[in-house]
């Protein structure tokens, strides 16, 4: 693989850009692999990447039914933060945030990580108390966050109306090192690096069955035929229940639609990410100038990647109250993804009842921020056969044992 660099750009400029290579190979599947990862979203690709980088396992296939990054990874609003409440969450999200800082160098691909700061507004007294608690917890966990007052909110984001009639802004939890990144680039960067290590990324290939013998996984059936493997990682977000069904176990999660939308591009007006959990909306401005907007999930099970229009209306209504200047903006695009939501709003990373079959799912509405760290932890688990310290608490047994990692209170909306 030729490296991307300023020199490469200059070199190609002199020869009509004729020398750029394809970013990844498009191979046919081999008969067997050491590890198969199902799902070429961010989490699946990051798992493959760290399997190669940290554990030297490169006889790996990542199997994707659509195109890589076409699931939630390419549909999300890219908020990255790590100021969660519980210790296991803070550990894995902070690992992930810090890996985002060096990812462009690690994969030699510009993922446009922009640590512009993330602000979560407190608009009720209950929320103020909740965020003060998170601030204290984060200080003990070594995650840099502070609670700031309304004046600071206005200073950081002048377009906010802090004196709204229903929900005045009482303060905010502020994580200056949070931010955004280019979602496609995260998938593409990992895909290119994995392909370069000799891994096969097989797109347009749906897994239709999980093969097993004597309680151990032996391979998968796909629309391109059967493929054997020694170990299997299921990393399919909204379709986790479907894959678990193929593998013969159940998961404590449900699949629902989450939507987002972007406006027409406007001049720079906001250089932080703002989340307003009480009124259910959040917004940031992309490098192209579009306002990127999201809200809460739909309320019922859905696999169609289409959501209900009235949720868009609610989100926009809430944000117009918070940011009056957007009231005349035209919206350009709107879309949905299917997110896998668990009872405690924390992910599942763990072994499954099927031997040598591992799962990473349940990231729900907020797993983009976790991609590098989750891949790191999942790769470690697949390589060693047991979850390491980052993943240990996230096993699916926690629901039976009552060891919840409860983030549902901490993150009213999502992300």
């Amino acid at each position, binding site marked *: 693989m030729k490296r991307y660099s300023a020199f490469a750009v200059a070199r190609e400029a002199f020869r009509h850009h004729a020398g750029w290579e394809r970013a990844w190979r498009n191979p046919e599947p081999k008969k067997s692999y050491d590890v198969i990862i199902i799902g070429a979203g961010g989490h699946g690709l990051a798992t493959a990447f760290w399997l190669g980088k940290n554990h030297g396992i490169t006889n790996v296939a990542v199997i994707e039914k659509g195109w890589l990054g076409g699931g939630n990874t390419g549909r999300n609003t890219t908020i990255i933060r790590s100021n969660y409440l519980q210790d296991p969450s803070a550990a894995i999200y902070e690992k992930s945030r810090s890996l985002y800082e060096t990812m462009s160098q690690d994969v030699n691909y510009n993922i446009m990580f922009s640590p512009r700061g993330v602000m979560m507004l407190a608009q009720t007294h209950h929320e103020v108390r909740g965020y003060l608690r998170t601030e204290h917890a984060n200080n003990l966990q070594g995650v840099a966050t502070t609670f700031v007052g309304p004046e600071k909110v206005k200073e950081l984001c002048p377009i906010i109306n802090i004196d709204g009639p229903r929900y005045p802004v009482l303060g905010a939890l502020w994580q200056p090192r949070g931010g955004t990144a280019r979602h496609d680039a995260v998938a593409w960067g990992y895909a290119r690096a994995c392909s370069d290590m000799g891994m096969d990324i097989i797109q347009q290939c749906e897994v239709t069955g999980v093969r097993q013998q004597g309680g151990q996984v032996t391979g998968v059936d796909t629309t391109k035929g059967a493929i054997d493997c020694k170990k299997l990682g299921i990393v399919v977000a909204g379709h986790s229940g479907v894959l678990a069904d193929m593998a013969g176990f159940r998961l404590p999660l449900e699949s629902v639609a989450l939507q987002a939308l972007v406006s027409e591009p406007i001049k720079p007006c906001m250089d932080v990410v703002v989340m307003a959990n009480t009124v259910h909306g959040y917004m940031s401005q992309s490098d192209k100038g579009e306002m990127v907007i999201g809200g809460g999930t739909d309320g019922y*099970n859905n696999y169609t990647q289409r959501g209900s229009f009235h949720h868009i209306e609610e989100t926009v209504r809430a944000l117009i109250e918070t940011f009056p200047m957007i009231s005349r903006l035209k919206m350009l695009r709107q879309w949905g993804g299917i997110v896998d939501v668990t009872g405690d709003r924390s992910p599942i990373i763990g072994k499954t009842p099927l031997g040598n079959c591992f799962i990473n799912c349940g990231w729900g509405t907020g797993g983009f921020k976790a991609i590098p760290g989750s891949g790191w932890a999942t790769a470690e688990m697949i390589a060693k056969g047991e979850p390491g310290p980052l993943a240990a608490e996230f096993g699916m047994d926690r629901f039976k044992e009552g060891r919840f990692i409860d983030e549902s209170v901490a993150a009213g909306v999502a992300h």
Partner: protein
Amino acid sequence: MLTLNCPYCGIAADETELSPGGQAHLKRFGPGSSEDEFEGYLFMRENPRGVHFERWRHSNGCGKWFHAARCTSTLEVFGTYSAQTVEPPAELRKTISEKRPGWSWGEFS
């Protein structure tokens, strides 16, 4: 937009009139039940790509709970029925079988 017929008022209710209430026909478990039973009751949900049975409330209408049968991969509504039952009516199951041969859901098929 989702439209469900409220079996009590008999009107076609728009989604904005309704509140979703999750999976229908849950078996409840109380004191003395095993950990597996509690886990199943509290956290394990049918999450099918296909036929699903749900509870809904006509919250901005008559206020009553009812049941609906839907397809989660096409958003087709197979029908709605009263909440005063522990299983989907035979008639509705027949309709679903004609449209989705071989379906099964929990202990029903």
